[in-house]
């Protein structure tokens, strides 16, 4: 199996001294579905932020598709990010744009054709069950609706890797299940998925690879794992 993501000896110490990640070594293969679990403040979001270069590691190397992304020139960063679809924990929807425009924006960035945009955007919004809110602005949406809008934006360009930071934190169990099934389908088509989550039941039911962080350390890496209550 080819490794699409590889972390070698990665540590992240935030200015201020908080060591959010400590010597992480991990390989993720193409097409894998990985859950990232751990208590609050364990470093899950930091782990994901390193992948799309929101943060740079203090030590260590990160390879995506064999390319060392800690050495990227600022000019190359956008092209890295375009191959990743990210659902941010705090959503990061553009406040002035409607759901449709937010999703379309991700396609405009890669200079997709207007026809393609008009075809694809409504389809993806439908997939996350937000068709009825297509023309609402983020501040007119409920928490769960914002979360799904963020998910739709991450999916729209059919990225190689989808990085989702608690994509069901604001969703009821039923909707969470649907979203997970959707992600599973996307994964089956070959997309690599990395999902940080606290949804114990979902993790237990899905039986995917589980990476557990604890206080910045990778304490468990289990194929077909469970959320695990005690470590």
């Amino acid at each position, binding site marked *: 199996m080819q490794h699409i993501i590889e972390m070698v000896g990665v540590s992240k110490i935030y200015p201020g001294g908080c060591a959010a990640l400590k010597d992480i070594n991990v390989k993720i293969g193409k097409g894998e579905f990985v859950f990232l679990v751990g208590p609050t403040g364990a470093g899950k979001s930091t782990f994901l932020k390193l992948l799309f270069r929101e943060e740079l590691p203090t030590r260590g190397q990160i390879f995506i598709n064999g390319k060392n992304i800690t050495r990227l020139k600022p000019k190359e960063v956008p092209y890295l990010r375009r191959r990743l679809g990210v659902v941010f924990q705090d959503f990061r929807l553009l406040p002035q744009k409607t759901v449709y425009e937010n999703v379309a924006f991700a396609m405009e960035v890669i200079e997709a*054709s207007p026809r393609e945009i008009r075809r694809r955007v409504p389809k993806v919004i439908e997939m996350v069950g937000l068709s009825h809110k297509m023309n609402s602005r983020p501040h007119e949406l409920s928490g769960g609706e914002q979360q799904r809008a963020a998910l739709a934006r991450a999916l729209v360009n059919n990225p190689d890797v989808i990085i989702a930071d608690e994509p069901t934190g604001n969703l009821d169990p039923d909707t969470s299940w649907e979203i997970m099934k959707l992600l599973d389908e996307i994964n089956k088509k070959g997309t690599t998925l990395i999902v940080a989550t606290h949804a114990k039941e979902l993790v237990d039911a899905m039986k995917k690879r589980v990476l557990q962080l604890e206080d910045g350390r990778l304490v468990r890496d289990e194929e077909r794992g469970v959320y695990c209550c005690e470590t």
Partner: protein
Amino acid sequence: MKLRTIRYFFREAFVNLFRNGWMSLASIGAVASALIIFGSFLMISINFDYIAKNVESQVEITAYVEDSVDKLKINQIEYNIKSIDGVKEVVFVSKEQALEEFKKQVGEELLEGIENPLPNSFRVKVETPQEVAGVAERIQKIDGIEEVKYGKGVVEKLFKITYWMRLVGLAVMAIFAAISVFIISNTIKITVFSRRREISIMKYIGATDWFVRWPFLIEGMLLGFTGSLIAIALLATGYSYLYDMVKMNVPMISLLPIEEFYDYSLGLLLMGTVLGAFGSGFSIRKFLRV
């Protein structure tokens, strides 16, 4: 870059202009105020120059002719003066004319019955007022000229004043140009700052710097352009009002007619537009570093 992307940039710029509602108005207002200030000083400075030129052009040389010189020789002298480099206009003033003028000045009755003591003379205007001393010297050397007067001292003082008028005008204008630039770029910087989150989100989605920047640049350009137009309209109205008032009420001061400012308005328009565009383009830079 694809054509559709350019279209997207313009659409985005226009949409943001309207979505940001009063923020856009505030920026336009700032551009307009700054340019009104700069434009006013520009107008004042140009009028200073104009008035200075007017005053300077009234400087003339009086060359007194020796009493012994006859009519023919006078023509010859006139010709000689005219052929000096830099002389614009030569007018002959006979003894009689000179007396008439003197009488008018001093009061007829005082000089009644006195034999005319005044000589024939030439009044000479030069092309460049600053050359007056040189020309005067050369006239002095012409045969048959008794004395040359051009208000030596006074003329130098006058030039000093006009020189200073111009210098201060320019300096003040430069200072106010700088202040105007500061006000415009300052305001635009703050408005861009208040959208820094948006900018960073766009970058996280995978937008290149220029993809984020172009709409801002165009938006800034539109803001600057609109602001300048407003400034120019207000300045033109204000100036023509002032011009008419001054013309009616203070006919001895003549301001530069408004037509002379057409070229300058184009300059203001360009300045506003460019400042708007670059203000946005530069302010955005530090928020793109994510």
